[in-house]
């Protein structure tokens, strides 16, 4: 078994293509064929461009600037995923708690309770106890369950949980995809680039080579910068009003602890609010008042939606940072990849891939 590494393959492709072009150029003189002459000249130019791309891109990826960008972006996307995971776990645990409370039901059968006394009396008086038992069996129960008090909150949290499945899966896909691409940068010769250069060296596969090279450029050089921009955007939105917030904090990745994450204040406040309302035994009235913003609950909810509130933080952290911004990053990256591909000489349509994302 012999292993030809990707960098050797790229160089081999360029060399073989170069040799083929020279042979065709020679034959074009032999046959006095002007078409072949111009074709081989144009091919020679393309092979030469591929060689320049090989040198330039392999030099650029080893620059410290891009490496640190990539490390930071990787850390950031890991953070976004972990944050989303903790938020989902928080929702699951809170709904589980609510669900346990909701499942409590009390049953009372007054006839049976009275009958317990009567049965003992009938035993004393010698009456038939079986008839009494039949009466007890057919008597009605009074039952009360706590679920009506909890269900509005559970429904709301369940809906959020159902929607959270999509963004978390998508972030995971981002993480897996860029994990491979960004881990690959630790090598001197990344697979995607070398394969692209190899394919670009030949006429038939030039378009696909250009696609891979354009994807490589967009993923390695542009996408990390978009992630850093996203992070700065979220940090400004959430922390700008804090006194100690400075420009240096633009790309600061906060630590996540198990009990403190974007979801924690939101769900805790929701549950606390619910507990306070359950004590009044008037959830429906509380919701009505909340809709009109007249009650304390309404005020609390409005407060939570304000920029310093927990719902606002939750929505920004979980949906905007975890779903909208990464999606935007993919759109921009593929858009730029298309531009790069066009500048390399191929018009590649990434729309089907975008639809899949």
């Amino acid at each position, binding site marked *: 078994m012999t292993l030809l590494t990707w960098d050797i*393959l790229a160089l081999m492709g360029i060399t073989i293509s170069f040799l083929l072009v020279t042979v065709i150029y020679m034959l074009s003189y032999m046959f006095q064929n002007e078409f072949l002459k111009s074709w081989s000249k144009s091919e020679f130019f393309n092979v030469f461009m591929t060689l320049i791309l090989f040198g330039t891109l392999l030099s650029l990826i080893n620059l410290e600037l891009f490496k640190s960008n990539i490390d930071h972006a990787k850390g950031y996307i890991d953070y976004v995923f972990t944050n989303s995971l903790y938020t989902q776990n928080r929702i699951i645990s809170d709904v589980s708690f609510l669900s346990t409370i909701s499942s409590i039901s009390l049953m009372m059968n007054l006839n049976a309770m009275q009958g317990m006394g009567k049965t003992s009396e009938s035993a004393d008086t010698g009456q038939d106890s079986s008839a009494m038992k039949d009466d007890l069996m057919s008597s009605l129960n009074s039952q009360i369950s706590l679920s009506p008090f909890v269900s509005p909150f559970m429904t709301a949290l369940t809906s959020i949980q159902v929607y959270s499945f999509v963004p978390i899966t998508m972030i995971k896909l981002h993480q897996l995809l860029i994990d491979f691409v960004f881990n690959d940068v630790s090598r001197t010769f990344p697979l995607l680039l070398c394969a692209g250069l190899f394919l670009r060296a030949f006429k038939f596969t030039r378009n696909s080579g250009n696609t891979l090279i354009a994807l490589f450029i967009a993923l390695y050089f542009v996408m990390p910068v978009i992630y850093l921009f996203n992070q700065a955007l979220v940090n400004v939105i959430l922390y700008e009003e804090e006194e100690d917030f400075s420009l240096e904090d633009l790309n600061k990745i906060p630590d996540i602890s198990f009990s403190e994450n974007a979801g924690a204040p939101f769900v805790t406040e929701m549950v606390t609010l619910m507990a306070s309302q359950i004590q009044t035994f008037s959830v429906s009235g509380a919701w009505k008042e909340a809709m009109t913003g007249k009650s304390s609950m309404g005020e609390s909810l409005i407060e939570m939606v304000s920029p310093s509130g927990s719902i606002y933080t939750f929505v920004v952290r979980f949906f905007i940072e975890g779903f909208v911004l990464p999606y935007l990053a993919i759109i921009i990256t593929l858009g730029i990849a298309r531009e790069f591909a066009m500048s390399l000489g191929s018009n590649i349509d990434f729309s089907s891939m975008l639809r899949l994302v």
Partner: protein
Amino acid sequence: MMDFKNIFLILLLFSFSLNLVNSTDDKVSYCNINLMENSIPLISIGLLVSILFVSIFFMYGKFMSTPEVEGVYMVELQQIGLTMVMIILITGGIEILCSVSLTSEGLLLSDSDNVYTSIQKTQLNLMKKTMDYYISLMDGVNAYSILGSSQAGITGTGLSIMYSPVSGGNFIAQTLAPLGQSVLIAYFAQAFQYALFEFSRSKIFLMLLPIGLVLRSFPITRKFGGVLIALVLGLSYLYPLFLNFGYLFIDIDSIELVSYPDPFDTLTPLSIVLTTVVSPLFSAFPAIFAGVIGGFIAIIFESGSIMDIVDGSGSQIDFLSTFTLTGESFINNLDKIYSSFGTIILGTFFIPALIIIVLGAVVRSLSASIGTETDISGILRAI
């Protein structure tokens, strides 16, 4: 003139591809046959006949002083040259596919392992892992549903209190169920891709190459013939090569099975305590029972109660982690679930989509060189 000049190219490729089909096994692969050895005599005869025809045309043009006929020879020589290049490319391509496989380190030259066997192994492995993952996911849904549906309670004469101690299990089951649905769809997509891969390697599919060449000889069916040629070249040769490349991007071993709590381990101790200790105690002393119910309600809802403490400290997770439903272990489990799911989606949908874009570009260039502008991206998108 245009139709006539392509006839040699068509004849040569037709005889070559028929030879290719004949030397292929019924079931699988273009490998294990010596293509060059089988094809050289036929190709040589075809080339000689072509050159003979060209020389006849040249002589005829000269003798009859017909510049139009005389001019044909240069075009025909180009076509013969192009044919030779195409035959070399197809033969060389097959030989390469049968003796190399792509790894993340580079190109591996090996007699035992090749692109086809490598893809076959990866696809079967991916399908097996996906199905195992689906089954473990459904087992998880089952286990969490059992937990969620469990009821505990105390019943005295005329009074009872019932609750579901781990009813959150239902909620987790609801979270896992849609994942299972998506995984099952992914599994069928993988099965489709595998079947397509096997189909594209079969003898019957390879017959499309000579059929395409024949159809290409006639003006009316020329475009359709070009599509068939591009389809065979694209699906039988280039698709496996690019797919092999695409699979380098995923780590199938990272698909881990879902771990979940054993419902009976959790519920059995609870039910033993309730049936052997608590229930007889409350049946014997109904007054205690009534007091417990009242106290329970007070503890849950009154100020300073469990509810307030739990909500105030945000320690629901700790509370529930005693049932092994949440907590750090559940987070790790969720992480594994999403990692495995992401790998499956990446390998089933995302990578093939990328391959199709790259392959579509190659086939367009290739078919343009053959003489027909063919865009098979619409067909490939179905993959």
